Every structure is written in structure tokens, then in C-alpha cells.
């Protein structure tokens, strides 16, 4: 545990002292702010439909998913690819630390940064509170959904970073993983509801999943999906590192 903490501290320091992290955070808040403001603007017009602003914010449209996948790719691209490019991966893997500890620390560092992105947005429902009567359950569930979806996306991003030798390739690969997941979800919504493929794709659809979370439903299937994808991606990351070490 002491080694893991030391590795995590090293990882967090590297993330938070890099300009990329602050650019990502600033851009995330800018886009989130514009998006949330647009939701408020639309819903406050006299002829506006009834809606719940925070529910729309949490995955109400494709616009809220694509940037998220991009941000996660930007966060995770450096995890292993940078070490590899700088030539520090080999020494790290041959140091008296296990591959599991390295993977866990890299993942935890990136995931904590992902969670940190969302912390300032807690101001949004507080701003809303003064002008509406939002239900807090769906808001909490929305954040939980974003945390779980992020856990899986981050793990896929770390896997992409382990597979690639350059950060840009890792980012493209991570975006491919996340984008593929989104496309599968879109496919599910286009296929007939009764077909097996439609049911399977709907089950893995991030849109369907966030549709549940943002209305206040915490479904065990969604939790299992995110956690299992994250676990599998981390296992494969470990496998990739083993292959790297052996070659």
C-alpha cells in the first residue's frame, strides 16, 4: 500500500503540474458552462417545454458525450505512452514494484483527475436551487452515473495509453474506444427493439445508461457494466505490460 501511495503521489503530481491538466479543466468548465447556460436559456423562454436542467446536462444529448470522451482521452494519453516515449517505462517496470501497483496508480491518478473535473460543476445545481425546485435524488444519480461511466472510460484510456508508444496515438486510440462505445449505443437505438442485437447494444449503450441515471434510477446492470468494463480494461492493461516486459 505504501508503494501504491508513493506511485499515486508521483502520478498526481505529474498530472496537476502539467499544463495539459489545466487546459483540460478550463476547457471542460468552459464547454460545460456554455452547455448548461444554453439549457437554462432554452428552458426559461416563455414557450419552453418543461424539462429538468440537470437531467439534460447529464447526457441529455450527444453533445455532452463526445467532449467527455475527448477529455478522458486527453487525461489518460500520457499515463503509459509518455513513460514509454521518455524511456522511463522500462525502469519503472523493473523497479521493485509490481505491474498491478503501477497500473492501479496510473489509473487512480487519471480517475481522480476525471472526478476533479466534475467537482466545480456542483455549483450548477446550487445556482439552479435559487430559481427552481430541483429534486436532489436524480442530480446525485446523474453524478454517480458520470463517475461510473468515467471509471470505465478512464480504464479504456489507460489501456490505450499502454498499447501506444506515443501520446497522440494513445489519445486517438482512447477516443476510438470511447467513440466506438458511443456508436454501439447509437446503433442500439436505431435497431428494432425486439431484435437480439438491438437488446445487446441497448444494454451497453451509454445513452440508455445515462438516461436511467439522470432521471434518478441507479440500476445494478449499469453499475456492473461500468465496473466490469473498467476491470477488464485494467486487466488487459496489465497483460499488455507483461507482454512489453517479456519482449
Amino acid at each position, binding site marked *: 500500500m505504501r508503494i501504491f501511495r508513493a506511485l499515486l503521489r508521483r502520478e498526481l503530481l505529474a498530472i496537476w503540474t502539467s499544463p495539459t491538466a489545466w487546459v483540460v479543466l478550463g476547457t471542460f468548465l468552459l464547454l460545460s458552462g456554455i452547455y448548461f447556460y444554453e439549457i437554462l436559456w432554452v428552458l426559461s423562454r416563455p414557450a419552453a417545454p418543461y424539462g429538468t*436542467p440537470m437531467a439534460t446536462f447529464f447526457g441529455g444529448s450527444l453533445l455532452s458525450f463526445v467532449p467527455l470522451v475527448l477529455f478522458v482521452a486527453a487525461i489518460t494519453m500520457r499515463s503509459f505512452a509518455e513513460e514509454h516515449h521518455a524511456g522511463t517505462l522500462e525502469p519503472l517496470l523493473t523497479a521493485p514494484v509490481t505491474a498491478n501497483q503501477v497500473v492501479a496508480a496510473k489509473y487512480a491518478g487519471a480517475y481522480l483527475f476525471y472526478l476533479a473535473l466534475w467537482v466545480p460543476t456542483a455549483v450548477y445545481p446550487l445556482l439552479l436551487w435559487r430559481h427552481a425546485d430541483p429534486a436532489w435524488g436524480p442530480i446525485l444519480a446523474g453524478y454517480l452515473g458520470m463517475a461510473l461511466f468515467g471509471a470505465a472510460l478512464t480504464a479504456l484510456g489507460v489501456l490505450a495509453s499502454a498499447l501506444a508508444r506515443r501520446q497522440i496515438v494513445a489519445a486517438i486510440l482512447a477516443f476510438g474506444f470511447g467513440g466506438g462505445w458511443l456508436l454501439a449505443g447509437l446503433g442500439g437505438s436505431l435497431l428494432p427493439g425486439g431484435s437480439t442485437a438491438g437488446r445487446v447494444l441497448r444494454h451497453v449503450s451509454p445513452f440508455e445508461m445515462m438516461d436511467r441515471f439522470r432521471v434518478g434510477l441507479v440500476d445494478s446492470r449499469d453499475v456492473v457494466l461500468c465496473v466490469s*468494463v473498467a476491470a477488464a480494461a485494467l486487466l488487459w492493461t496489465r497483460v499488455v505490460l507483461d507482454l512489453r516486459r517479456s519482449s
Partner: protein
Amino acid sequence: MRSTSGSVRLRALLAGALGLALLVEVNELSCLRHGALDWSRGAVFTLSERTVAALETLDRDVALTVLLSEGLEAVGLRRGELLRRLLDRYAAASPRIAVRFLDPDREPGAFAETVRRRAFVLGRAGAGEGSLEQGVLVEAGDRAAFRSLEELFPPVAEGDRSSSVPVAVEGELTAAILQVAAERRPVVCLTTGHGEWDLAGPEAEALWRAHLESEAYEIRSLDPAAGLDAEGCAALAIAGPSRAFLPHEAERLRERLEAGGRLLVLLDAPGEAPAEAAWGLGRLLERAGIEASRGAVRETDAARMFEPGVSSLVVGSAGDRFARTRGLAGQRVVLLQAAGLRPTGPASRVVPLVEAPASQRVEEWDGPPALALAAEIEGGGRLVVIGGSTVLFPPFAARGDTANLALVMEAVAWLVDRPAALPLPPVRAERVRLFLEPGTLGFLWWWLVVAMPAGAALAGFLVWRARRRGEG
């Protein structure tokens, strides 16, 4: 060295394959058995215990087909989304339930086939290709029922600014499922020949009949010539008699009760005539430990009158001592020209269903009477007496703010030992309507789009400068 490397690769390959297999298997298992926490306002996605109990007793397969064009649902309260979530719960509660969404825009062929197959139920018999009312089709074998979107989502009044809207999906669909799935429909028999209601008659009767049938009861009128021998009747209902039962008829009813029979009696105040003379049912009531008043219940407090100046139109409230109607406790029950009731038997056997406030009186008694009582006697006989057949009068029963209908339906369900029959009241789903002034919007824009991102940029700059100084 080469063999070590090969062994690592093999192990890595196996671990990767194992990870993939686990991923698929774990998710497959999670779909077979799953649950959900409902944090929504009003727990709109949670099925009531009554529905779950009803679904658990299903003994035949029920298919729910949602006929809905979701392309029209992009804004406002997304009914398709809400239906999908709630029907998920139905499917999870019983393996007998299968749910399918049929969007006419995406699957026009299947949609047309469904309309053709169920044209009568869908209200399309003999109709052309006009627009079909959207809703949920509930099918079990050759039986089918349909609930329109308007029934599932009652429209709200124009200009309603509340932060929630009524959703009647669960009540309507559970009733429809019971209606089509009941293998054995309990028979409710109605006595005739004493001026009782004829269920084929006026609207009050029709209302009750419609609800009984929608809850999968079979209704049978007893031929007066055949006496009161009610073979196969799960419950006997005496609804608003205006002429007295003959002594031998009343005796048969009493014997039926003593033999474990179930009776529902809706009695209006007889006016000047003594109760026994008016209905001939005094001994039956006495056997169950119930006494009915001769005079009508009067409201003495003008402020409590349902209609100003009409003292015989009384408002009671559903009590909380009868387990089956506890969910209605406190809700209003409106009756006209009601007979007062009071228990004469042990309190454990006679329980008030509807209580009158202290301001209501009947001439011959001290203190407020009860407006409805339920009694159970040794041997299993059950009797529910409601002090007025007007409990089912549409101006009272069809109002959304009274428990009249729900009370009667639940009483019938208790009499026939049904697990669930209470028409579930609509729940309230969240909707937020914002009323933001331009100044407020300006403040929000400044805060959301400028201050917060700029704060992050400033923090990043400070970190960068500190790092540079450290390096320097």
C-alpha cells in the same frame, strides 16, 4: 529465454481471453437478475407492493406492447422514457411479463400487423388508415386491453406551474394486466328484486361495472325468482336496495355469512322508516356486530359542508385501522343521504373503513357515526357495510380527489381474498419550469461561462509559474 517469453505470452493471452469471457458473463448474469435504486422525486419508477404482489401471482404470460412514436417525444416530459423505465420494473418483477416497444415510424410493418390483429381493442375496428391513439397494448392469450397515453399520463390544466405532473401508468397497467391475465375471475353477484342497482343501467352502475370488469371480476345478477342461492359467487353485493328483503331472504343472507360467505352492502338512510323495516337486514347486520341508523348523517358545521347548505351531503375520511385501505387513510369519501353506522360487536371484529368528523351526527345517536364498517365473524364470514350507495355516484366517485371508488374496489378485493385491487393513485413526476429574468440570465452567463473557466485558467497559470520558479 525464448520459452519464458512464450510462456508469458501464453499466460497473457489466457488472461486476456478470461477477462473477455468474464466481462460477457458478468453482464449477462447482471441482466438476468437486476434491481435498481429509485432516487426520483415521488419514486416514480418504483412499483408499489400491491403491483409486485399481483405480478408474482401471475400464472400466464402477459405481453406489453408500447405503441409510441418516440420521435415526437424529444422535448418536455419524455413519456416513452418514463414508460421504458417503469416497464423495465414490471419485467423484472415477473418472468411472465414481456415488454416490447413498437415505434410506428421504425417498424411500420409490425405496427400495422398489431393494429390489424387487435383492431377492436385499439378502437380501430372498421376504421381506415387514420392516426392511431398511442398507448400500451396488454395481451395474454386471446385477451387484450389497451390503455391510451392520455389515460397513462392524465393531462394537466392549462397554465399549471407546479413542479410535478401526474403519472397514472402503474395504476392503469396493473389493472390492465389483472384484467387480461386472471385465469379465474372472481364472480361478484348482485341481488335484484329489491330496487337494487342494475349494472346495465344508469351511469353510477356503469361506472362500477366498468371498474369491476377492468379489475377482472365477473359480474352476475341474481335472478330474484331463483332466490339468493348464489353458486359460484365469490361475493354477494346488495347495492342500494329501496325495498325490504323478505324475512326468509334475510335469513338466507345471515346463514350465508355464518357459513363463511362474503357480503358487500351499500345502504342508504331509510328516512322515517325504522332500519329493519326499510331493508329487512337488521339481523344480518346484528350478526356481524353492526348497527345502522334510521336517519341520515347530517353535517352540523357549515364550514365542513361539501356544498353550502346541503347538510345531508357529508364528507368522511378513510380510516387507518383497516389494513387493506390504510393507503387511503385521510382521503375524502363523499356520501349523500348516508346511513350512519356503529359497531356493536368487539372492536377486533368490526373496523371502521370511513370515519365521520365530530361535527357529523345522526338524530338518534350521540357522537359521530362511522360511514363504512368492515366485519369479520368466526367461520370466516366477511361483511362490508357502506352507509350509502351514493359512494359510487359519478359526481363523487369519478373525482380525482375522493377515495370513493378506491374504497369500494378495495373492499371487494378484501371480500374475495384478492391480493391487490386498490386503484393506485397517480404519482407525481418531476418537471422543472424555469422563470429567469434577463438580469439573472446575465449573472448566470458571467458565472458559468466566464468566472469558472477563468478561475481554472488562473489556477493553472499560478501552478505553472510556481513550477517555473521552482525549476529556476
